[in-house]
């Protein structure tokens, strides 16, 4: 019983990075830019967050700086895919490797590695926190409670505002958007910057609020899982949130199993989330409506003056 309560209680903490990263990816990809760089941008956010936390010790400021840092680095990606129209898959992969190297180097040079920081205290949502079994779900750091609100805001932006309509038009049919007088490249740039900020926040969450220290490559493939999650969720934010909870569940189970004394090979346990990712992808692909709601122009660079 206790184990299940702990497991459920830990789930949100593991789910939030997936959720925020997936949301950032959705925001970018709805504008037609294929963003594979999430893993790298999460590392940038994580490192920037720890650096700010070591320097100022204010988690709010650290998280904002994590977002800003990821946005600034994503300008490089924007330059590659929007201005130079480099293949977005290649540019995304290059960004990941660049960020892995950069954050590893800076973390060592600045001696930020393995230095614990003070995170944020937990907030209790009374009286929900008194519930049996699921009470611990409602004792979390503030960003966990903020995450659904961020989702609500992004969904509102995408579906209930003219700005969102334009952003989706740019992702579905940039030629039509262009003819309607919408700046395709401008919207794509803003979508990359805003989406990257959310991905940076996901990274900052891991380092500043969750593990509370920096280790090189600490995101451990979560950015890639977020990429898969977006496909699994058919670019719908709410489905992505549900998917994030599912993966959070699986990740939260691992330490619980260890604590309960169930002996599993270490590498098998570490492999589990990726095995589940593969299984989910296969399951989604074998279902109907594979190309459901993928943005029509995802990954296609926009050039105005080309015939057809």
């Amino acid at each position, binding site marked *: 019983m206790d184990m299940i309560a702990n497991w459920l209680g830990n789930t949100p903490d593991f789910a939030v990075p997936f959720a925020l990263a997936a949301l950032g990816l959705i925001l970018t990809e709805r504008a037609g830019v294929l963003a594979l760089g999430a893993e790298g941008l999460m590392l940038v956010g994580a490192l920037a967050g720890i650096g700010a936390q070591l320097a100022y010790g204010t988690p709010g400021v650290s998280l904002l700086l994590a977002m800003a840092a990821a946005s600034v680095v994503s300008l490089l990606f924007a330059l590659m895919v929007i201005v130079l129209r480099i293949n977005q898959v290649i540019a995304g992969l290059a960004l990941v490797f660049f960020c892995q190297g950069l954050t590893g180097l800076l973390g060592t040079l600045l001696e930020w590695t393995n230095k614990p920081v003070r995170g944020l205290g937990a907030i209790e949502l009374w009286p929900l926190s008194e519930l049996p079994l699921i009470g611990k779900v409602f004792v979390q750091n503030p960003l966990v409670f903020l995450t659904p609100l961020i989702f609500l805001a992004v969904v509102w932006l995408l579906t*209930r*505002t*003219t700005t*969102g*309509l*334009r952003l*989706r*038009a740019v992702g*579905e*049919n940039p*030629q*039509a*958007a*262009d*003819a*309607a*007088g*919408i*700046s395709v490249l401008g919207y794509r740039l803003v979508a990359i910057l805003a989406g990257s900020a959310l991905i940076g926040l996901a990274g900052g969450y891991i380092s500043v609020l969750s593990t509370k220290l920096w280790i090189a490559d600490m995101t451990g493939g979560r950015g890639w899982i977020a990429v898969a999650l977006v496909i699994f969720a058919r670019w719908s934010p709410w489905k992505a949130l549900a998917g994030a909870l599912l993966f959070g569940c699986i990740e939260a189970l691992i330490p619980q199993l260890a604590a309960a004394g169930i002996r599993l090979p270490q590498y098998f346990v570490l492999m589990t989330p990726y095995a589940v990712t593969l299984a989910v992808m296969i399951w989604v692909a074998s279902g109907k409506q594979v190309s459901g*709601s993928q943005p*029509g122009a995802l990954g296609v660079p926009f050039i*105005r*003056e*080309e*015939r*057809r």
Partner: protein
Amino acid sequence: MSTLNAIQLTGVSKSFDGFMALAQADFTAKWGEVHALLGENGAGKSSLMNIAAGLYAPESGSLFIDDNPVRLSGPRDASRYRIGMVHQHFKLVKPFSVAENILLGLPEQPGNAVRGSHRQRLRALEARIGEKAAELGFAIDPCQATESLSVAEQQRVEILKVLLAGARILILDEPTAVLTDQEAERLLETVRSFARQGAAVILVTHKMSDVKRFADRVTVMRGGRTIQTLDPQSVSIAELVRLTVGESATTHAHQPGTPGEERLRVRGLRSPEVGGHRVLNGIDLSLRAGEIYGIAGVGGNGQSELANALMGLPEPTEGDIELIGFGDLRRASSEQRRALRIACIPADRYGTALAGELSVAENFGVGQIHGGRYGSFFRLRRKRLEEDAAAAIAGFDVQGVRSLKQKAALLSGGNAQKLVIAREFSREPQLVLVHSPSRGLDVRATAAVHGRLRTARDAGAAVLVISEDLDEVLALADRIGVMNAGRIVAEFPHPADRQAIGKAMVTHE
């Protein structure tokens, strides 16, 4: 009628990838007139109008609006000068509703913006769309998704889009190419009354009859140059044809074929039922060697679905499609279809028939790549491929090919179609399946395409032509089937009565 110039383009030049699309073109449209821009495919009409709409930047030349020099930085700028263009290939976001598509194009001007939240703006806009649509006599549901609309309806959405954005200079690029006679007539009546209210309408077209009947003035373009501007009432159609083509092109009268034995038999072809409705609802037809069978009908009565099913594109159907001597045509693999010498000319040249990013030569050779003529698994005989492609391009008069390595997407509509035909006809086809072969093509290209189809028939091929252009069906077919609500409702041998066919096309049981 005011004599003030609405829009004037002088000395405009533009090239694409080294190809001179426009050379020192001049064009002037006045307020209150319908001004036709007439020319063959690739004459530069669309390029010139794309410059007027701010979509392309000219390399040289100037643009005047109300006699004031203007530089357009993009479509938004054009919309600020109240220029609106309805493109030949519609610029609609498919999953969006009609109102959402129109909202996208609305400029953010104080006079134009509806106050309130996005939802309120959308509701208010839906009401305005309803009013404007009623005024123009369009039946449009603003909440419907545009992907579920017919081509004619999508065009109406495009027109509503530019008018609601406040356009006073309306540019229509080949508006009647996708419409039936009646739809085209109504559209042109509508735009003429719009011009009579003081606006300027530019009608890009290659249809002489539209020009004669609806234009106040006409400017003829040829080879990227503007040749002459004249009053369409003062010239004959023959003279207009001479100006656009540059030499006289004659239209062929129908020559009957000599039908042989049956080659393709379709029985009870149906689509799956969706919402109590079947797109294809029991097609029966029989096609013989040495004849052209034409399928006429108003667009959206199942022609596309029938074409897909016959051409081996994904289309769920039940019933029989029997190729005599082979069996169910749907079971034939692409390779078998090649071996059976079945030629397909789909309606969507750039999407289905050609791979735009591949070169002209590769597009030509791709059909025979399995045959071994162009090398084995390990080797590509590029030289032989290019020689064959060059010969076919010369033989089929494909123009605008500067290099065999050039992307097929850079060909204009007519030349792309000729390339498709050159490829498909390179192996003496036994069965030819054609959908809207001359859509968007000019007189000369159409005559060339029709000539090729007749040649194939005379060589013994069975030819099936599905077309929404009744003139085309009448000119080609030895027998005509009329498609209505997913069935062949009537069949007419040649010579057919145009009135009777027209009646069968629109009658509902």
